[in-house]
């Protein structure tokens, strides 16, 4: 609905932590009965001392293994959860204190769960969302125009959501999340389960909407293809702590400049692979060295994939 002046960040988190109290469960039936009256809690820190500033119009990848604290962070930014410590400002609003107001300026998409009315045609869902978010008629029409310019809207507009394919449903969910022109949109696994063509369509749509509406996008995903295609900046958290926050390009050199050198030697069918850290060894020297002993038929030099880097980071 309204976005802040572009020099102000969309999201500011300062030393945010979230603790959960969990009951220490006992074993067996008698244990379960004791648990009913138990006051024996332990504290779990789901997010610990995370500071993060996200600028207006940025698309950031918010990554981490399962249980790292990603969804807890998102829940705090969306105002569902109150942080135990620290401060959060979302587009000038403290989310937990103004949950309704905060909901007006955010949009949320879950790849696996549609938020649209199951039995209604998409256009009716859009109309309802227009009413719920109190979107001005002109802005609404403009938005639908923009949608038409980005995707082929007609085939899905009058189709009930339950009759849609997964791809159409995801597309619809993303459009629905942007409908009230929120300042920030959260995308959780937006391309999960989709084929390659649909994945790229969805990514193009997100890029298009981000470019047109300067919407800040927070993307959580396990699909590195999404990250490569959409994000300039990546934040990685593990065990509740922020362990990386920088450019995608920097990520590739974060753990040394790795390249994979693949060579096929004369008389052999198989490729010989060698991972080389360019800070230590030169790829050319490695080739020269091999050439002295063998005849090389074919050479490939590959960049290490984001997926492998992330894996390296998780394995820490």
């Amino acid at each position, binding site marked *: 609905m309204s*976005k802040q002046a572009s020099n102000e960040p969309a999201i500011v988190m300062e030393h945010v932590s979230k603790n959960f109290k969990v009951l220490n469960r006992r074993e067996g039936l008698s244990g379960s009965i004791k648990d009913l009256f138990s006051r024996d809690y332990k504290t779990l820190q789901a997010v610990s001392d995370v500071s993060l500033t996200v600028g207006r119009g940025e698309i950031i990848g918010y990554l981490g293994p399962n249980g790292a604290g990603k969804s807890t962070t998102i829940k705090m930014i969306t105002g569902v959860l109150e942080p135990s410590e620290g401060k959060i400002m979302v587009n000038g609003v403290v989310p937990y204190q103004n949950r309704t107001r905060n*909901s007006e300026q955010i949009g949320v998409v879950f790849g696996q769960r549609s938020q649209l009315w199951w039995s209604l045609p998409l256009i009716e869902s859009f109309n309802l969302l227009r009413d719920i978010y109190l979107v001005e008629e002109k802005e609404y029409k403009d938005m639908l125009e923009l949608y038409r310019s980005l995707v082929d809207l007609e085939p899905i507009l009058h189709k009930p959501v339950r009759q849609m394919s997964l791809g159409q449903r995801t597309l619809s969910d993303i459009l629905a999340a942007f409908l009230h022109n929120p300042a920030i949109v959260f995308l959780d696994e937006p391309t999960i389960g989709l084929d390659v063509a649909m994945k790229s369509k969805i990514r193009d749509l997100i890029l298009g909407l981000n470019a047109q509406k300067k919407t800040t996008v927070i993307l959580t995903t396990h699909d590195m293809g999404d990250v490569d295609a959409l994000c300039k900046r990546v934040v990685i958290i593990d065990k509740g702590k922020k362990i990386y926050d920088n450019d995608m390009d920097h990520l590739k050199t974060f753990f040394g400049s790795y390249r994979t050198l693949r060579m096929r030697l004369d008389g052999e069918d198989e490729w010989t692979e060698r991972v080389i850290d360019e800070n230590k060894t030169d790829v050319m020297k490695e080739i020269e060295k091999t050439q002295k002993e063998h005849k090389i038929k074919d050479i490939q030099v590959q960049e290490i994939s984001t997926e492998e880097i992330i894996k390296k980071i998780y394995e820490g």
Partner: protein
Amino acid sequence: MNEKNNLTNQMPIHKRGLKFYASIYKKIIIQDIKSKMSYRADFIISTVGMVMTNLAGFLTFMILFHNFPTINGWDYHHMLFLYGFSLVALTPVQCFFDNNWNLRFQVQSGDFIKYCFRPINVFFYFISEVFDVKGLGQLAFGLGTLGYAWHKIGLPVTALNIGKTIVFLITASLFMIAIMNFAAATCFWIIGSGYVMVIMFRFKDFARYPASIFSGIFKIIFTFIIPIAFVAYYPSLVLLTPDKVPVLSWLSPLFGVLFFYLSYRFWMLGVRKYDFTGS
């Protein structure tokens, strides 16, 4: 959009009042009915099913009365009145609050989180999602029975009586809605909440008998703990025995509103509890 950017932090504060919710609800229901109508076979079968269920209930009632001409001083037509009254009073819970039956599935699968991100009341958003047309058959059946019994008893058709009927029917339905809200919301704490709901829903069958037939402990339970006696008996006494209406009957609208409010708070407490754990 650029001019908007200058209005730093000047986002208009939207007030969403009763009018807003009423208009949203109306739109959802109209859309929902439209889409249900398009599944004609499903619509017909469920309507027939509802009529059969009601007929079966009615037959049980007839057989019972064939053997006992009066129950605790209540004759056939008074019982019929109570029966019709309970059917009408149970319609709103069936029509408008049916999504409570899906609550536990959504909570267990984690899908419930989606209701927490919209700038509208979570309870409203969840409940408004389903409108069950089947309840309309029950409403017609109940109204017919009620009208017939009314005529046979010889209740005068005055504005006062009709006003009373409306107020106390609403009261009665509030009790049933509240009971089901409580039952459904238990799923935020326990896994076996399905049983709680089924048991509570079964209890509604007791609503069609005068609470005076229950003795001692059951009467207390059905009045104060699981207030099934308020889903027909107490409210209908206002019409059936205008000379000696118990205090509880007069107080029932107040209790109904209060009980409904408590059930809403309990439901919302569950949502908060869910927020803290569900992921």
